């Protein structure tokens, strides 16, 4: 059992990530790490993949008050396996987490991640999903949504943007039989409690945190939490968890908002016509319906 954070007043006060890092102003990925470390506490060891947050610690300064190891881009899960096993051998306390971007997770790092989940190592893998290769300047990856504008899938006379549908990593990781969940910065208690649940279980876990990238998605830095909330309220980013191969939805919006409200907040969808937006709405409706059905008949 884990110690649940019931309200904002119960959020632990100690901070393990302070200011002074060269990230963008208002970076949601940095916020995700701050909230994760608040939930998990002292003794966390963060293994980071090359990406935006690799520049959090720039020699000789670190804004972290926990241990950190940066390896290469694809192997956060494999490196974390080594650390978790070594801590057991050396009889030391510590929670090992990976904090990796979607590019490192969906594409280049899917092999080691699958290996870690299959072996059952006690690592919590947090993927901060900004749906792009953000650190190199916003290029397409397999997490990029349909019709999004990225530097390698730009719209033009011959193209409407990205035409490749995204992978569903949460379902893929859930199929390994481990705990997999989605999370959003607009629902901090849900995110932090999911992490605590994973920490208490001692088994591998995969948490995917939606990180609206300010330069990559193109919106005003102050609206970060609003964009993340709209993503959930329009069912673009549903909040659910998979435990023991069963889906459970954590939040069902009382009034599902039209996805147009979410798309219009971002520059990456500025080129869409009403027809395109209707197509996207259709896809989202179909996915949401399928999730509700999967929950109802207790499937993965």
């Amino acid at each position: 059992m884990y110690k649940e954070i019931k309200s904002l007043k119960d959020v632990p006060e100690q901070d393990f990530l302070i200011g002074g890092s060269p990230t963008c102003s208002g970076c949601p990925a940095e916020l995700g790490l701050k909230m994760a470390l608040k939930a998990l506490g002292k003794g966390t060891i963060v293994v980071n993949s090359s990406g935006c947050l690799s520049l959090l610690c720039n020699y000789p300064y670190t804004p972290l008050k926990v241990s950190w190891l940066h390896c290469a881009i694809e192997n956060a899960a494999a490196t974390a396996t080594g650390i978790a096993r070594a801590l057991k051998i050396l009889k030391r306390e510590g929670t090992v987490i990976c904090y990796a971007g979607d590019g490192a997770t969906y594409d280049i790092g899917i092999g080691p991640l699958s290996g870690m989940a299959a072996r059952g190592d006690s690592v919590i893998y947090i993927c901060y999903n900004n749906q792009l290769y953000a650190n190199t300047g916003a290029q397409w990856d397999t997490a990029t949504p349909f019709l999004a504008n990225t530097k390698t899938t730009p719209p033009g006379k011959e193209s409407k943007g990205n035409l490749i549908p995204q992978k569903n990593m949460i379902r893929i990781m859930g199929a390994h039989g481990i705990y997999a969940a989605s999370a959003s910065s607009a629902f901090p208690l849900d995110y932090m409690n999911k992490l605590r649940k994973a920490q208490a279980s001692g088994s591998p876990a995969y948490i995917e945190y939606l990180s609206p990238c300010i330069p990559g998605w193109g919106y005003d830095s102050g609206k970060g939490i609003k964009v993340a909330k709209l993503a959930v309220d329009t069912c673009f980013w549903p909040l659910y968890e998979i435990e023991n191969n069963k889906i459970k939805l954590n939040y069902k919006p009382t009034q599902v908002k039209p996805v147009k409200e979410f798309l219009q907040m971002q520059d990456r969808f500025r080129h869409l016509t009403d027809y395109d937006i209707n197509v996207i709405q259709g896809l989202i409706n179909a996915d949401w319906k399928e999730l509700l059905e999967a929950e109802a008949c207790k499937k993965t």
Partner: protein
Amino acid sequence: MREFFTGNEAAAWAARLARAQYIPCYPITPQTEIIETLAQWLADGLMDADFCSMDSEHSVLSAAIGASAAGARVFTATSSQGLELMHEMLYIASGLRLPIVMANCSRGLSAPITLLPDHNDYLSVRDTGWIMMNAQNNQEVLDSMVMAFKISEDKNVLLPSLVNLDGFILSYTMEPTIVPEQSMVDKFLPPYRPTHAFFDPERPMVQGVAVLNPDDYTYFRKQLHKAQLNAKEVIERVCGEWKKLTGRHYGLVEEFMMEGADMALVIQGSISTTAKEAVKDMRKKGTKIGLLRIRVFRPFPKQEIAKSLSKLDGVAVVDKNLAPGLGGIAHPEIKECLYDAKERPIVSSFVAGLGGKPESVKQFAEITDALKKDIKDKRGRIRFV
């Protein structure tokens, strides 16, 4: 105790005697027997370590880096394609100064694919900052690997080590080998207690940090280079301690019948045993030839090579490897040691044994005849044997 087993088992014995704590692994011919032996010993309770089968060789070295960064003693093994897949991580392991010990069963690189040995995979590690040693027989495999832990963990070195054994020739061939007593090895090699890299909640540490300032980056690289230079003295000291305990002597290089020699064969690895037989035969017939075996390739023993070879008439560097467009890999490195000497021999390159091509005593006699021709013509040549 005296045993009779393969080179792979010798490598496994070294990991067992050194009390390696974490062994991530991935199977590849011809090293698979190393990890199978260790797995069986662990299943039978003869050893206490964490054995972890990983999803690729890249993940093997990543996990090794993670565990070593946390403060555990790590051993692993690989070969050709696996070594190339983990190539990116080799630089990271030495850059983070983690004393991992790895066994490499040399095998020719694809393409074309082969299973038989040559040194291209072993020598591809030469710029990574790892300490590199090449063994000539199974006894040396065991001894070198146990010593490698002590050398790597020395506070003046703190670098990972690679010990090479030739695939099939040593890895699958049984030879009589003396296995040292566990108590002796425990006294020789105390437990790994790092002061430079570990994870402790009370003393958080950031490892693998981005160093964007070029002055800081250059500083760290210079320290790495200095650590490699320090390793020469540490290797000789550790080999001296090992000689006192076992009577078996090793060094950076090995000289064989070099007294009064006019010519020399320069060689690495297990083919030196065949070459030594050839040298003995040729000496009986009156040819004044000797052999210099390069046991440690990094740090490169420049002074020892220069001292051994500079007064000779001719040197035949026999490379069991090929750098296409250049020739043998060790050949230019040997020549570089001799460049500043007042007297220099003619240095010829012989590329032999690629993809497991067998070398015979007769071939070494042919190599010597070709070298004699080069000495007469006063120019070195590159030949394929």
